[in-house]
């Protein structure tokens, strides 16, 4: 099971990103939990300077803007 964290202070894009992760996981039939991290300090500590950021199993894979759908599939199924 993979654990995905979406970093973002709660802007619209961050919500969209979290939804994208969920639907992609469902589409691929993967067991994925998604948490949203909205705390500014934790976001910064994770090394995210432009939100939304995505970490899969503790590893930061993406920052800044909506992720590319193809790339997202790659991170989740890797």
């Amino acid at each position, binding site marked *: 099971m993979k654990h995905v964290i979406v970093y973002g202070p709660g*802007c619209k894009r961050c919500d969209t990103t979290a939804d994208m992760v969920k639907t992609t996981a469902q589409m691929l039939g993967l067991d994925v939990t998604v948490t949203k991290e909205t705390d*500014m300090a934790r976001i*910064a500590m994770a*090394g*995210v*300077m*432009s939100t939304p950021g995505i970490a899969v199993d503790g590893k*930061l894979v993406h920052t*800044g803007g909506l992720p590319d759908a193809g790339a997202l599939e790659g991170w989740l199924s890797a």
Partner: protein
Amino acid sequence: MSARIDTRTRPTPDWLWHAALAAGLVLWVAIYRQLLPLANWLVSLTPLDAHSHSGEALAFFLYDVPKVMMLLVLIVFVMGVVRSFFSPEKTRALLSGRAEGLGNAMAASLGIVTPFCSCSAVPLFIGFVSAGVPLGVTFSFLIAAPMVNEVALVLLFGLVGWKVAATYLSFGLLLAIGAGWIIGRLNLEGWLQGWVRDIHTGAGAGAPSAPSHEMTMVDRYREGLTAVKDIVGKVWVWILAGIALGALIHGYVPQDAMARIMGTGAWWSVPAAVVMGIPMYTNAAGVIPIVEALLGKGAALGTVLAFMMSVIALSLPEMLILRKVLTFRLLAVFVGVVGTGILCVGFLFNLIF
């Protein structure tokens, strides 16, 4: 842009992208050159007299809206492509450990081309400071990034003229450099919120960052298209409302009505414009068409520039966001320094023009 091709279903060869963009650009130029005759022709279709007040206002509206929108689409696309060459991580690497002075100038310039959203101002601030970017240099970036943006420049260029646009660009940069330099000189690192200082001295220094992957030129074009969709999709309503209001001012506010309250003669108008601008959180897109109309009615350029800069650079919501990392004292210094800078720009311009 005519290059909106879905590439996920079947990959489009690179040459088709280049060709489509080139064709789009040629088409853009062809249409842009026909806008004025087109607007006049559309007015001639209405029962309005082309030389009456309402006829002129309508022609003005029908010409300005497509003109500004077309300029916006082009410039936002180009900036989207340019921004794909930059990232906050790269900018941080360029700025970290940089001496003040040159560092401030670099930070302000990078503020224009680095992708930035005010919603991530705080993580970015911490990311910069914790990696050894001096506080003043960080402020230069944070002031320039929202203030000198392509939407403001396009609107100023399209509605008021290139001279005012160039003036706004250069003084916006100077203000960001100067204000950041002064804040740096004051050595206020101790006035950051406690928890930010802790990251500063420890954990954040070796913070991980997302691996950057190589982008192809087509990826960059896509970034440009996304930027157009995002930005133009967000600001078009403001532009329409602003230009409509501007057209009303053109038509119905008596000539020189503004000269008394916003003219060069009234010294207090500059500070008043700055104070009025702070709680206003309209984006540049809505303010500039109104600004243009006020200029036409005798408002002084410096007063108007000061108002614009204050609206954009000293917005209340952004201060509330920054309050999380800055102590109240540091925030007050920030507002004081930037506000004074804007005042100087305003007075200077009223003196020159």
